[in-house]
């Protein structure tokens, strides 16, 4: 359904060039959920925004439904934007405070020329779909809780019947008990409507739960990608290994008996990328040659992709 090839997006700032997305490739199959994880600043949001062309890609290709959309104009993009929607991280900032919930959901219908007489029916239907009632359509964002606002964001994304939804940290700002409500809803909607998700998140156990496959990003590159169970039970890349060993486990005994591989130092910023494998300054298994190594994702069996050549 979606194929991203060697995608690059750089930002030219007064401090220098930020290599936010630096050669990302993956395929997204119809009906699946691909999880995208990695530390803050590794380029997850920029990847999502570049795919829906909120940012113009610097290099690479974006193929959606067999059509190359990499460099098409905003006007030519319009029909694709209807088919690819995005849900944003912050349920507080992403809704216009001066619009009612109903009008927020109506807006994409106007943009995409859906006949006016259908709007109200659709809004009612969407509000019910996300477990809000149609009476609440007249209220403003500040009258809703965080979880309810995220539901409005989901209703807005669904308003024009998209096929692919890029979910950028849709649950990070929510309470644990509310996160489960939203995740269940996303799963139900996927089954009912045949949706495909790119699911960006920090919470690695939730990503495992919801994803078919998971991609791990580090400094603008995907370093490992595999089926979600495979990735979590059999991680290969040293970065993924340390990430997996740092996930807090809600079980005292398991938590105590687990060995966690701690990383030295902090993530370097995307301004001055380390030469060679960009993980080498923090990698517990780094060898001298890693400083000049040209690392690329390779299939190490059964579609398990890893960029580190030194795995057992």
């Amino acid at each position, binding site marked *: 359904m979606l194929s991203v090839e060697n995608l690059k997006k750089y930002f030219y700032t007064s401090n220098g060039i930020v290599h936010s997305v630096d050669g990302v490739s993956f395929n997204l199959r119809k009906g699946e959920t691909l999880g995208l994880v990695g*530390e803050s600043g590794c380029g997850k949001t920029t990847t999502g925004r570049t795919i829906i062309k909120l940012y113009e890609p610097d290099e690479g290709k974006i193929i959606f439904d067999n059509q190359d959309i990499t460099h098409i104009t905003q006007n030519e993009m319009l029909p694709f934007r209807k088919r690819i929607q995005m849900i944003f991280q912050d349920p507080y900032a992403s809704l216009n405070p001066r619009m009612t919930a109903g009008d927020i959901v109506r807006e994409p219908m106007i943009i995409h020329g859906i006949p006016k007489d259908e709007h109200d029916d659709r809004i009612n239907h969407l509000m019910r779909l996300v477990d809000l009632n149609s009476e609440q359509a007249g209220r403003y964002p500040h009258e809703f809780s965080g979880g309810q606002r995220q539901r409005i964001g989901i209703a807005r994304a669904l308003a024009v019947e998209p096929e692919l939804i890029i979910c950028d940290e849709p649950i990070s700002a929510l*309470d*644990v008990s*509310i996160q489960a409500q939203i995740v269940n809803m996303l*799963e139900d909607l996927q089954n009912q409507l045949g949706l495909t998700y790119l699911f960006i998140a920090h919470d690695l156990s939730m990503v495992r739960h919801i994803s078919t496959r998971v991609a791990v990003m580090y400094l603008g590159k995907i370093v490992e990608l595999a089926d979600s169970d495979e990735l979590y039970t059999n991680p290969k890349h040293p970065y993924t290994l340390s990430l997996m060993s740092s*996930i807090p*486990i809600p*079980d005292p005994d398991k938590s105590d008996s687990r060995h966690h591989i701690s990383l030295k130092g902090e993530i370097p910023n995307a301004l001055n990328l380390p030469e060679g494998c960009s993980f080498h300054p923090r990698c517990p298994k780094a060898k001298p040659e890693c400083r000049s190594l040209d690392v690329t994702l390779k299939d190490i069996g059964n579609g398990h992709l890893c960029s580190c050549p030194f795995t057992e």
Partner: protein
Amino acid sequence: MSENILRVEDLHMSFFTSAGEVKAVGGVTFDVRKGEVLGIVGESGSGKSATMLSVMGLQGTSGRIKSGKIMFNDEDMSTMNMNEIRGRKISMIFQDPMTSLNPVLTIGYQLEESLRRHKWKGDIHSRALEMLERVGVVPAEKRIRQYPHEFSGGQRQRIMIAMAMICEPELLIADEPTTALDVTVQAQILDLMKELQKSSGMSVILITHDLGVIAGNADRVLVMYGGQIMEMGTRRDIFYSSAHPYTKGLLRSVPNPDMPKERLIPIEGQPPDLLNPPKGCPYVKRCPEAMKICMNQKPERITLSESHCYSCWLGVKNNA
């Protein structure tokens, strides 16, 4: 002297806003023992920060302690000079380090200021360098002259820890110290806190909404909801034999590490509005086992063992 460093007794605290009185803390009683890590978990708005701000005397102009007692080392805190206690005997780390670091002063100045204020006996500059080294902000000689914006989020949180611990407090209150950080950095910071806590023997109150962080780091756990304590016990009590419907619901709503794909069981509904808190049990609107009595009367605290207690009418009925 008792083995408690802190005792909070039936604390009621409200914020007075234009919309009315927000009953942020509605009758909270607990102890913190010497040398332990007490974890506090609860949803957003459940009163975790409000309780701790009351302890620190930092509830602000709109906040008011209405009743209750706070004892530090068996002494009533309302009779103490909080300026001498704060930063010296009790320190607090806040969720967002940028709100507590002054952007126009070097971190060295800010570290040393705290030592000056509390009349540190030794050399303040070498003490500041020592703390920076201990929290891994190196090379300390160079870093000490830098400003907060020159550090990453994880490093700023380390600096906050150095600042909180520089006067060797007896109690450290860490309010979501790692929520804004990534898991790898979070693990580093929590390890660092544990190590410093072990070597100094201080007590720590660790506030978080992450059950995993609690399971890995707390000796005892306090579960808060709607401004009240729902359940309290050792981490084994809470994770392996929880008694309160809210605690059970919370544990069910996160993915099970053994069955990661299993459908989640959320707690339906929304947390209560503390402008108009329910008269009875704060959890009544979302509780699958709610009874009539829960609507109108606050449940009593039921003791299950020396370490474990909870507040719920179910227990009263079962005991009867």
